[in-house]
């Protein structure tokens, strides 16, 4: 597993010769080994950008990000980074099995068919091993994408609104599954989400961000014991925290 140290990170994009857009400013965040962090905030507050910086998809403008004391590229090159996007990002010409085998091929490892079978079972896609992404529903594609992110036993899992495009019922069900999957092997996780209750249900800590420029407004510890079930969602404490967080998100 990995611990992340984000120190005074800023990110800006040049709009033209004179102006630049500050997407992130002075982000300080320490993620402990095996911790589940949810990032919430209004659209355009830079939470996805922060995730991209941790995945080393873009360079930071200022500050530094270290994962276990190394720059993020190092983790990626060791193929220990798992990621799932809002769009499933499955290769349309490969079956579910083929898509799950892809991380092994990229890493140059022997394809572990037993593990792929287990992961498919873990996300509840038995019987769809040879189906192509277009033959699956939106929820099933996201499950396949999450299974793929777990293939190489990542030490850091990045989830960029993986359930964002789903309906409320499917989303709730996948949240419950996500918790079960995560509890099997508590991998350090960063989840970007729009949904306050998803964040509270899944995370150990919720990081609330404000927009333009993106800054951290508050970091909140979530006290509920795991596994969290439906009774947590109905509890008064959960609703009080939801009201509080929703209040923070209002401009």
């Amino acid at each position, binding site marked *: 597993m990995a611990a992340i140290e984000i120190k005074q990170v800023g990110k800006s994009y040049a709009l033209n010769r004179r102006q630049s857009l500050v997407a992130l400013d002075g982000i300080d965040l320490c993620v402990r080994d095996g911790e589940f962090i949810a990032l919430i905030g209004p659209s355009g507050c830079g939470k996805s950008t922060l995730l991209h910086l941790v995945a080393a998809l873009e360079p930071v403008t200022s500050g530094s990000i270290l994962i276990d004391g190394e720059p993020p590229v190092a983790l990626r090159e060791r193929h220990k980074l798992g990621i799932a996007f809002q769009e499933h*990002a499955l290769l349309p010409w490969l079956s579910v099995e083929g898509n799950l085998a892809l991380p092994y091929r990229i*890493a140059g490892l022997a394809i572990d068919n037993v593990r792929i079978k287990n992961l498919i079972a873990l996300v509840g896609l038995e019987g769809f091993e040879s189906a192509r992404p277009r033959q699956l529903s939106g929820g099933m594609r996201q499950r396949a994408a999450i299974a793929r992110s777990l293939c190489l036993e990542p030490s850091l899992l990045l989830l960029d609104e993986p359930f964002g495009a789903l309906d409320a019922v499917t989303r709730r069900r996948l949240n419950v599954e996500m918790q079960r999957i995560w509890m099997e092997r508590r991998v350090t996780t960063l989840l970007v989400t729009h949904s306050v209750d998803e964040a509270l249900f899944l995370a150990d800590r919720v990081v609330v961000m404000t927009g333009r420029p993106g800054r951290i407004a508050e970091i909140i510890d979530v006290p509920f014991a795991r596994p969290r079930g439906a009774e947590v969602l109905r509890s008064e404490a959960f609703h009080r925290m939801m009201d509080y967080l929703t209040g923070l998100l209002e401009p």
Partner: protein
Amino acid sequence: MREAPNTPASRLAYAIGAPLCLLAAFELLARSGVAGLTVPTVESIVRIYLKPRFAALLWRSAVATGGSAAVGMFAGVFIGTATAFTAHLLPPLRPGLDRLAVTVSAIPALALGPIFVLLVSRETVPELLAAIPVAFLIYVAVSSGLRTAPISLGQMMTTFGAGRLQRLFYLEVPSALPSFLGGLKVSCTAAMIGAIVGEWFGAPTGLGIVILNTMQNFEIPLMWAAVLLTAAISLGGYGLAHLAERAVARRFA
């Protein structure tokens, strides 16, 4: 408006009916005598194909022209694909290669013919003139196809630790396949045109030669037989590429 029906039976009816209608119109035109002697009856053309002497000539010529078109096609596909990959993997070269491709394809084949006659030999001009438009069409098709992969898929590959060549192999090449086959389809006709025009610069045999000689000797039915054979070879290549495109589209698009 009612939609045209699209069942296997209706498609077959179109495939047989449309050429039959065309043939009927051709026959009517020939018999009416409006076009004089230049449009022969269908029967006289069919008789040409049945005469062993003409059939042998046409077969020999078709093999020569088809062979040149095929060689030009392979060479063009290879050159076009290799250039597109180079431009894709070495972005600084892209603008230059784009312009070079456009420039070469903008020069009319008829202007290049004499140069090639001097540079190489008369026999290789059909192949060269077939290869040039194919190389251009394939270059355009492949280089745009390689860029059709969605950014999100590229980011996914990168986060799993894929290098440049792995991204090319697992993502960009499969994404470019439909576009490549589209390019191959239009290339078939272009290669045939190039081969025919190339033969006019003094190739010993070929359908281009037959068409030219019969026109000058006023052997109208034989000329039409050669023209229709040329069209059939072109359409055959187009049809094959179309089948491949459909099979790939089902999986990759």
